[in-house]
């Protein structure tokens, strides 16, 4: 089976359509960014507090919102984050606080305030029992050792530690962190009715459990933003040097412009689809940069090889031929990478959603930019310099040829 055999398209002839397409995509993306007053930064870059809560039943969002207002937290937000790919998450909520002042109040004042509101909304348990849904393994083990429901006496040893761990595993992995009735723990290994009744008498079942907390101070956000930009610029510079060394500097510049174009379009899509930019998204963008370079290099490699074989032909023809020859490989690789990141996007969970979205968009755009932007730039530049024919290869080129022929 083989796709793309004997394709003979005139890519460089269509260059103006590609540029038009790129400009359109850029315009759409950046119009969206302008309309939303800038890119949506995640908490890593903005600073602030985020508390992810899982409820036992459908969360009373309006009630909580009112509670937050009353508690004097006007810059708070609460929204449901149920995820279609994960049934357990249908009662999940994220409560956010904007960055509060630069003052000396402790970093987690916001988190404490949110917890207070949640406790108030659900009423504090007056029986004085501990909350099973937020207890830690060591505390549970201590309680069990004290109550000794399995009547192990002094030979208890490690058994209660292990039992506590198993109970909490069941709570966290099977029940998603919130247990609504102690009989849900019946099937845990080592649990007897005596254990269950000692749990029932000693613990209450809170209505919610904290899944995740993120608190980032004000100055950290600005610093991370700076670092992210620096990292991207350095990476681009590094690659420019590398490609200029392996090919010619105009190839390097063309590749970097193409990659830059990819990043801009991806950011535009982020704004269009309301995704936030976090540190992992920056990781995706940098990976994209490397990946887009790949594609571009494969085409340039072929161009360089064909330049030696077809010295007389115009550069545009050579480039066309090179793209056609590598088309099979390009579509295949991009297709497969696209497939894998799509699987990640669909099945990888909420935490990686923005990351995998960046990769999905980036793979497509990155592949396109290699023949749609980078190659045309090289051709146009050479035409502009008055050389319709093939430019000479660089010295590094000849070295490479020598080793390859080994």
């Amino acid at each position: 089976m083989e796709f793309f055999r004997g394709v003979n398209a005139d890519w460089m002839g269509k260059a103006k359509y590609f540029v038009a397409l790129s400009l359109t995509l850029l315009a759409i993306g950046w119009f969206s960014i302008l309309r939303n007053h800038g890119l949506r930064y995640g908490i890593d870059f903005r600073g602030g507090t985020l508390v992810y809560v899982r409820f036992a039943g459908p969360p009373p969002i309006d009630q909580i919102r009112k509670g937050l207002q009353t508690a004097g937290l006007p810059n708070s937000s609460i929204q449901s984050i149920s995820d279609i790919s994960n049934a357990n998450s249908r009662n999940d909520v994220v409560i956010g606080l904007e960055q509060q002042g630069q003052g000396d109040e402790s970093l987690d004042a916001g988190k404490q305030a949110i917890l207070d509101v949640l406790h108030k909304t659900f009423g504090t348990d007056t029986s004085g029992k501990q909350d099973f849904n937020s207890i830690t393994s060591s505390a549970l083990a201590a309680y069990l050792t004290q109550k000794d429901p399995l009547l192990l006496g002094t030979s208890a040893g490690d058994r209660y530690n292990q039992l506590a761990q198993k109970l909490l595993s069941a709570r966290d992995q099977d029940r998603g962190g919130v247990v609504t009735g102690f009989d849900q723990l019946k099937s845990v290994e080592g649990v007897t009715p005596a254990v269950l009744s000692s749990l029932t008498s000693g613990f209450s079942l809170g209505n919610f459990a904290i899944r995740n907390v993120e608190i980032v101070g004000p100055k950290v956000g600005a610093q991370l933003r700076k670092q992210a930009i620096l990292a991207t610029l350095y990476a681009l510079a590094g690659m420019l040097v590398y490609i200029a060394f392996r090919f010619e500097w105009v190839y390097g510049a063309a590749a970097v412009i193409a990659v830059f174009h990819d990043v801009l379009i991806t950011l535009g899509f982020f704004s269009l689809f309301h995704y936030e930019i976090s540190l992992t998204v920056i990781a995706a963008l940098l990976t994209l940069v490397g990946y887009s370079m790949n594609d571009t290099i494969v085409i340039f490699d072929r161009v360089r090889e064909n330049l030696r074989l077809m010295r007389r032909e115009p550069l545009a023809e050579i480039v066309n031929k090179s793209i056609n020859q590598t088309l099979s490989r390009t579509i295949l690789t991009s297709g497969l990478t696209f497939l894998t990141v799509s699987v990640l996007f669909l099945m990888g969970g909420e935490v990686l959603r923005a990351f995998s979205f960046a990769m999905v968009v980036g793979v497509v755009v990155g592949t396109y930019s290699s023949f749609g932007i980078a190659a045309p730039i090289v051709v146009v530049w050479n035409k502009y310099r008055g050389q319709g024919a093939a430019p000479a290869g660089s010295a590094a080129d000849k070295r490479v040829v020598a080793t390859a022929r080994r």
Partner: protein
Amino acid sequence: MNPQLKWKFVFILIVVLICIYGILGLPQFPTSLAQLNQNIADRIKLGLDLKGGSHLILQVQVDEAIGFHCDQALDQLTKQLHEKNIPFGEIRRVDDTHILVRDVDPAGSGNFRDLVTSQFSEWSYAPAAGETNGYLLTMKPSVVADLRTQTMDQSLETITRRINALGLTEPTIAFTGRNDNEILVQLPGEGDPTRAKSVIQAGGQLELARVADEQTYPSEIAALSAHGGVLPPGTIIVSGKAEGTAPGQPPQQVYYVLDRLPIVTGQDLRSATTSPSANYPGQYQVDFKLSTAAAARFGPFTEANVGRRMAIVLDHQVYTAPVINGRIEDSGLIEGSFTQDSAQDLALVLRAGALPASIKYLEERTVGPSLGADSIREGVRASIGSLIVVMIFLVIYYHQSGVNAVVALILNLVILVAFMAYAGAVLTLPGIAGVILTIGMGVDSNVLVFERIREELRNGKANASAVDQGFDRAFLTIIDTHVTTIVSAIFLFLFGTGPVRGFAVTLVIGLLANVFTSIYVSRLIFDWHVSRLGREAELSI
């Protein structure tokens, strides 16, 4: 079979065995399924975002320690100027590293300069701008730098001692390396870092000082005015909570006048423990024992001050001020509204030592165990899904050679996981995404080679020659494409934090392993296959 091929096979087999042993065989050779699972869990270190736990970034307020040092020098200088009879107008601290001495008597300025040069070598001095007969002392930059390093080192040590005393599993405490005054603390498995945070942040400075004035005052001004506007020499005013407030009422702030120099400080403690309170049933107290040297001071002090009050000052706040009933040699207690937990925490902090400067939290992230478990499950699911998709495609598109690619891909992943196990690298959720990317990008190398081989076959080359040409021609391109992604990943590693670094590490290792498997292993399988085919047979690709 060609003997050269045989050796290459053996080599790869050894590599595979080492890898599998690295993942499954350590630390104890498995004899049961449970042990196998345990080994895997041990070898593959999970990041906080997969295991659950807390991640804190602290900033040590180093300037406080420098300011304190400055204050001490200022006190010393004042004393010395008086002793040496060098008249001056005013001495005050300008900022953390500068002291201004105004209106130094011109006759004594020679002595002044001598004094500074001989006794205050940490300071350089110069005539103060805009002042006649004034001098500005500046702490030398090398001294400041040393102080910074000392403060950071001592803070790290103290915090490490405190966290270790809490008995948490495998905490990480280290300098972040990002700025020179930040410390990273990672507490795996700790779903609620509140207690750890308060233990870390507690100043821990204990001082026992005699109460100079039996009266307590509602404000500083009241205390001052009771002494005619000037404090008696050698005393200071310290605030504290009033004793004997009714339960449920917020404690009132009162002010004590204490001896400035404490008789005993936290450094004189030999031990600190807790026990149920004798005087306040239901509560706890902290008992401490003094070192012999301190006991030698404390005994006579208590004997000479029977009937007077002694203030127990914690972090510049008077905690209690009990009456001294008799001579005490080397033990004491601190009591008053402690729960068992808070008493134990205080004892812990006293044992570990005081922090040289206060701590501010910059960042706090806590991943609960349920989220961690979900992340692992979803990440593994996505990995397996993408692996299957890629495998199916390869076999359909490249037929038998596709199987070759699948073998190389699986070996790639095995080497990746084994390398991470041996290197103790941490697997994070983005790291799992890195594994998936390795799958997607790694296939690229195979595609490059296979497409070349197809091309050469189309051009009429024989099997062996086509395979040769395919690998040769594709080699450089493979290197090129891996280099760019690896360069990106390196920058990510340098600039990134925890989870992002995990991603960079997994991606780099995966791509490096990919170079090995797609060039060396794939080639070997092809060579073997071709050598088995007859001259006329078609290579299935």
